[in-house]
């Protein structure tokens, strides 16, 4: 009889997993493209570190000065700033993070404690989280520089704040993942989001002052929530009020415990093999041919796009498929909603400050919001095959040139941007601050120029550096090179537009800017068309790399 072997202890299991990750990374470097990715990752991380350094230095100086000048009430603002960045930045902007497929670990006799700690530890390696930890440390350094005797308490409070933030973000994502796992919920959410977006502008116009007052001036809210308690604990520590410090820290610990408990509860279900699948039991009834026919008709409704003369059947088919993937993907839906919500918030803030009509600089808020729309909604374009996964084989197997596939995808992305741009225009108009006609036209022509150039680059990147994404999962690993190139391209396009606006607007007048951008858009169209034609050849050239990444 074979000898029974005991499962290794938690620490040993974590060490083994770390070793496994290292081996995977090291073996991955055997390919030259992986080395290129590693270099790009280092460059990006250096850039990120440089960006994080500025606020970090500010926090050191701020922490020091606030303690020295006894202005500790401002800790509230600093800790809220860090927490909001930690929790919201991954939602509002691109998410340069890695994801760990913890489910693959469950085949081993992994202890729950190891599973829990690994999930937490892995999340801590993301750039946003690292920046959050770094800024907490910077604040601590500032406080301790002014009052070295507070080192123990400061480390304790800030340490708990870090843990609380980490647990909160993990808890939120794990529960959202659970809630949105069901297609029905996702589709209901889509309808709700669309309804909200449409009605938001009207409701906000009616009650915007009350709402903004509630959120922006209600100091109680900011104090009782976790960052407020962390700040209160620090203030009490600096003031020497041990009781207050203990009470605030205890509440902070309680928050962390609740978040940790909720996260552990969710994780426990995953640990026990929870399947978030939603397959219903097969119906006992006989197949209903009429029902299927009806569903098939719904599946591919007759649209103007399908009529000859506009686009071919395969282009329309890809377009329809992209629409379906869009409204079933919570992440894409959230990306769609976020620019509208942010624009409304910005307008509310301006209104709550009593600036009255938006002054001259405010007329550029619409173009700025549209720029943000591009940044958020076009994240997926440089990796547009990501969600197709193994289905991408079909594109190589069917008698269709890849230019048609990419055209279908580009048309869909252009539609989402177009809808969003119009929605934002509706919002700013309803708020009573429509941009002047030349700026509006300049924005729209700029959008066309930007889209065409960006699509040309993004299509190339989609073939060159593809990455498979799991459907509906946030913060997935994208190609670092692709991120560098697409980010650089985006800002270069914005720079070109800014230069055109500055030069033409200054030399001739703002009215000529739309004309200049339309001329650029025409050139961009020719570039895009040429690039689109080249995609068929490029897809064949890159076919093996694409299939290797997507078909797993």
């Amino acid at each position, binding site marked *: 009889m074979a000898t029974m072997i005991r499962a290794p202890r938690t620490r040993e299991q974590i060490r083994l997993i770390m070793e496994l990750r290292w081996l995977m990374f090291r073996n991955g470097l055997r390919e030259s493209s992986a080395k290129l990715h590693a270099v790009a990752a280092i460059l990006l991380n250096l850039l990120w570190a440089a960006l994080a350094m500025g606020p970090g230095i500010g926090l050191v100086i701020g922490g020091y000065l606030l303690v020295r000048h006894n202005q500790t009430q401002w800790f509230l603002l600093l800790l809220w700033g860090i927490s909001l960045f930690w929790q919201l930045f991954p939602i509002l902007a691109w998410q340069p993070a890695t994801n760990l497929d913890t489910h693959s670990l469950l085949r081993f006799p992994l202890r729950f404690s190891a599973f829990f700690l690994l999930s937490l530890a892995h999340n801590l390696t993301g750039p946003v989280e690292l920046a959050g930890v770094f800024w907490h440390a910077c604040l601590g350094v500032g406080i301790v520089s002014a009052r070295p005797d507070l080192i123990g308490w400061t480390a304790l409070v800030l340490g708990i704040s870090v843990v609380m933030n980490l647990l909160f973000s993990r808890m939120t994502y794990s529960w959202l993942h659970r809630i949105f796992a069901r297609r029905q919920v996702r589709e209901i959410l889509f309808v709700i989001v669309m309804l909200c977006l449409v009605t938001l502008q009207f409701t906000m116009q009616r009650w915007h002052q009350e709402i903004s007052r509630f959120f922006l001036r209600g100091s109680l809210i900011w104090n009782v929530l976790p960052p407020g308690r962390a700040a209160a604990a620090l203030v009490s520590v600096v003031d020497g009020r041990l009781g207050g410090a203990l009470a605030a820290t205890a509440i902070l610990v309680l928050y962390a415990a609740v978040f940790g408990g909720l996260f552990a509860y969710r994780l426990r279900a995953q640990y026990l093999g929870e399947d978030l699948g939603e397959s219903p039991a097969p119906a006992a009834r006989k*197949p209903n041919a009429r029902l299927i026919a009806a569903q*098939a008709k719904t*599946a*591919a409704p007759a649209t103007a796009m399908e009529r000859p003369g506009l686009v071919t059947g395969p282009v*329309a*088919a890809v377009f329809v498929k992209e629409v379906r993937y869009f409204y079933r993907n919570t992440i894409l839906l959230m990306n769609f909603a976020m620019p509208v919500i942010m624009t409304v918030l910005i307008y509310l803030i301006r209104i709550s400050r009593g600036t009255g009509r938006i002054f001259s600089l405010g007329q550029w808020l619409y173009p700025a919001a549209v720029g943000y729309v591009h940044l958020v909604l076009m994240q997926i374009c440089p990796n547009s095959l990501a969600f197709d996964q193994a*289905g991408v084989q079909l*594109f190589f197997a*069917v008698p269709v040139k890849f230019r048609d596939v990419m055209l279908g995808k580009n048309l869909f992305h252009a539609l989402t941007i177009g809808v969003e741009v119009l929605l934002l225009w509706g919002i700013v108009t309803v708020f009573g601050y429509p941009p002047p006609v030349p700026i509006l036209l300049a924005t729209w022509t700029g959008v066309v120029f930007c889209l065409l150039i960006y699509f040309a680059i993004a299509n190339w990147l989609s073939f060159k550096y593809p990455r498979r994404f799991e459907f509906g999962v946030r913060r997935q690993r994208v190609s670092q090179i692709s991120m560098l190139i697409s980010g650089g391209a985006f800002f270069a396009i914005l720079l070109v537009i800014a230069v055109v606006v500055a030069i033409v607007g200054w030399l001739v007048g703002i009215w000529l800017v739309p004309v200049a951008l339309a001329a650029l858009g025409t050139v961009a169209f020719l570039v895009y068309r040429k690039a689109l034609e080249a995609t068929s050849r490029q897809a064949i050239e890159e076919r093996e790399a694409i299939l290797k990444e997507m*078909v797993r």
Partner: protein
Amino acid sequence: MSQLAIIIENLTRRFGRLVAVDQVNLSVEGGQFFGFLGPNGAGKSTTIKMLTGLLAPSAGRIELLGRDLERDSIEVKAQIGVVPEVMPLFDQLTGSEYLNFVGRMYGLGRRTAYQRTVELLEFMNLADRTKTLVGEYSHGMKKKLALAAAVIHTPKILFLDEPFEGVDAIASGTLKAMLQRMAQGGVTIFLTSHVLEIVERLFSHVAIINRGRLVAHGSLDELRAGVIASAGADQTATSNEKLTLEQIFLAIVGERNAARRSEEELAWLR
């Protein structure tokens, strides 16, 4: 249909130093039920990928239905169907949405795509799962759906890589029924499978690939005769009984039989 549907000349595929497929020459007549067999890692899937345009050959030439695959890839692809090893499914579409999508991608009109979707789902016993996302299908259901998608455009050649792998008897029966119906209609079926009983029952011709090289090719009777001839006089007793495909396969591939392994090996497993 007796014209050659598939002509493969000196087909080679290298992955770095590894030669996965080594100068394979093969021809398959139109309307044949053709089994492409070989042990794991022999080069079967690599060959199918090259035959369907999913992988570029390092050398050699592929002609399907009289057309060069590389030169006329679009025209050729319109005439073939494929179910690769990893099924080309879109997990976030429902079964009917997926079949409609594939139909449109093959250039079918909207109405035709609907009709065929309905009929295929009925035939594959998937009609009660039209609202379920493909990602939620069982493995067998996915196989059936992938096969339905591969035939929606009425291909003249069908390439299938392990269609019976992980499929239960009921689903397997449906797949076989579909394949038999197509073969009766003159479609050439080129299939890899480890389930030799099915191959033996359904297929008229077989090729065996081992370590990238084609080691046998012909009808089952031809292969059987070849094995008996190469076994020599001491095997005459065996020759009197009809050799099964498994016996032919093992004789040709010549791998060591697991049952005959030394008792001392992996003693710790007992």
